[in-house]
């Protein structure tokens, strides 16, 4: 194999493409974790986002309607997580797993009901790559950024907005306070439950959007279990990035890179072995890369009101 500039550029472009869904989901996880709610339901929120985006696009013929339905259903699944955990005090890991199992059971069911197909849906209109001529002409940057669709730029904007929100706004400060010390937050008059609901719902919207990217950004259809554990990887990226959107960005690009190496290795090694790579990297990160980090001190704590 000869390493050419072209190959490197195509890997970098692919790295960015593969990091977008991870970035969106892990950034959503920041909001959830910062409000003190475990973000283990990202996988299910993402999967439902992916499915309902295709459904919305199928029914309306418009990708933006698809995007909206995907985001909304990500939030509906998040709402279930919030109700179970915040109101009914179900352990956050369990209620997160419930969301994931629910999405895994419900999406093939609905796929069958709506499209009359199993395994995958019919094709729908999706987000095309915009044809920006002037950008494609720029050396280096052109081949990397020219192939990205609008959702890529939206996610980058969301990193900045989320960071400013969490670290430079009064509301963000309060959200983090609820996550660190719910008793104190409650004592100064904050509605702890409302903040937790907010954090979880935002995580649902972001993870849903991550799912939209998978089904309408990278493809134009829904495939059963198309998230394939990306939601769990996002949980790890979120911890790796210290529950900070900027950290999510770095972590997602790191994972996206290993994910994109698959395309090269595919022709040299059996596909099953190559497909193990991102999961092995995740395990290594869990074992060796999360030292010194800690989750917000109030995670899983409830406040009687």
């Amino acid at each position, binding site marked *: 194999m000869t390493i050419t500039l072209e190959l490197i550029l195509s890997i970098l472009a692919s790295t960015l493409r593969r990091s977008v869904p991870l970035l969106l989901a892990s950034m959503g996880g920041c909001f959830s974790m910062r409000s003190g709610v475990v973000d283990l339901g990202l996988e299910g929120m993402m999967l439902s986002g992916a499915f309902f985006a295709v459904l919305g696009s199928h029914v309306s013929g418009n990708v933006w309607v698809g995007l909206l339905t995907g985001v909304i259903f990500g939030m509906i699944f998040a709402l279930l997580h919030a109700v179970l955990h915040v109101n009914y005090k179900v*352990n956050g890991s369990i209620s997160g797993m419930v969301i994931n199992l629910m999405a895994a059971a419900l999406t093939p069911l609905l796929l069958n009901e709506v499209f009359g197909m199993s395994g995958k849906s019919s094709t729908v209109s999706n987000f095309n790559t915009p044809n920006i001529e002037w950008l494609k002409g720029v050396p280096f940057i052109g081949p990397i950024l020219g192939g990205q669709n609008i959702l890529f730029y939206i996610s980058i904007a969301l990193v900045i907005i989320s960071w400013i929100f969490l670290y430079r706004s009064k509301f963000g400060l309060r959200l983090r306070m609820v996550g660190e010390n719910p008793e104190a937050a409650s004592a100064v008059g904050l509605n702890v439950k409302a903040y937790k609901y907010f954090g979880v719902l935002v995580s649902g919207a972001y993870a849903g959007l991550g799912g939209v990217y998978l089904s309408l950004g990278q493809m134009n259809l829904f495939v059963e279990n198309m998230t394939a*554990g990306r939601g769990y990887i996002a949980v*790890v990226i979120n911890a790796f990035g210290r529950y900070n959107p900027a950290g999510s960005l770095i972590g997602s690009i790191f994972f996206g890179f290993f994910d994109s190496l698959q395309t090269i290795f595919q022709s040299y090694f059996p596909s099953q072995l190559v497909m*193990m790579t991102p999961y092995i990297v995740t*395990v290594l990160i*869990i074992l060796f890369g999360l030292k010194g980090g800690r989750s917000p001190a109030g995670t*899983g704590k409830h406040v009687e009101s």
Partner: protein
Amino acid sequence: MKTPKIKLPSIRSRNSLVTSFLALIFSLLLGMVVILISGYSPIESYKAIFGFSLSTVKGFALSLSQATPLMFTGIAFALAYRVRLINTGAEGQLFIGAMAAALVGVYVHNLPGLAHVSLALLAAFVSGGIVAGLVAIARVYTGSNEIILTLMLNQIIIFFTSYLANGPLKPPSSGVGQTERILESAQLPRLIPQTQLTSALFLVIAVAIIIQFILDKTVFGYEIKVTGQNLRAAQVAGINTSRVSIITFSLSGAVAGLGGAAMVLGVNYRFVEGFSPGYGFAGISIAALAAYSPLGVIPSALLIGILRAGTITLSRTTSIPVELVDLIQVLVIIFVAAPKLTQSVVKIFNSLTHKFLKNAEPVGGENS
């Protein structure tokens, strides 16, 4: 060592029996909505599902054989949950156990039947136990999240065994990913010919009894109980909680591994790629339904097995999908995990029936 706080629904048997019963009823009721959307009568469908499973020999045998792997994974989840660890890795442990059993079954020759079967089961037990044990060690000593670790390992194990079944271990003539057929000496006898019901059923019942015995009647069982209920108190009392957690979690993985062996030695006679339609995750639901009692797993897995067998058969002639059972299983977890939710649903039901009775009374009065 940090252990997540988990409130167990009180293990007092009467209380949990009611919770489980209501959880199942509510889940079945919500399942009716799915059947309605599919365009069938819910009552007729449930009649067909339970009728097939309970009134025909073939149906009941299918129910039991569907329930067998669920019993293994249900016991696995219940056991780990006793030390408040969540074993979402049963799926992966199932696969590695199945592969280990298949390797022994295919490549170890010249052993008498009982020894061959035992060796294959042992291989599955040990491999499932090691995989889970490594996770538990990471959990105890680095505080890693065991849920994510096991879920990632699931993917790794499933891909790796799939590589083996599609590559080095694949019979030349085979079109799908699988190993060679295991030798006859490694096969578990079938209880009813022409069905998939094997003596693995007795094995899993024995496992349930042994584990229940360990939990209730031994010092180690007591240590498990204290560790799970109050980690601090256990440490103060001089219990080596790290050791207890690691052994318990390993044992949990070992039981799931046995479940994989049961599928290979009894049902498929070889490792077949993708042999499990999510048995590992179904175990969560079954353990919850059994209030995390290993012996209780047997009847609750049987209930889900009955539902599965009936739905599989019904899905062949109608458009009611098998995933209906998956959904019902998730709903069961929700209702068991949130007893207050169940209570509020009961309250709504009560007030509704109350209203209904009130409205109905004058009508009754006129008739009499």
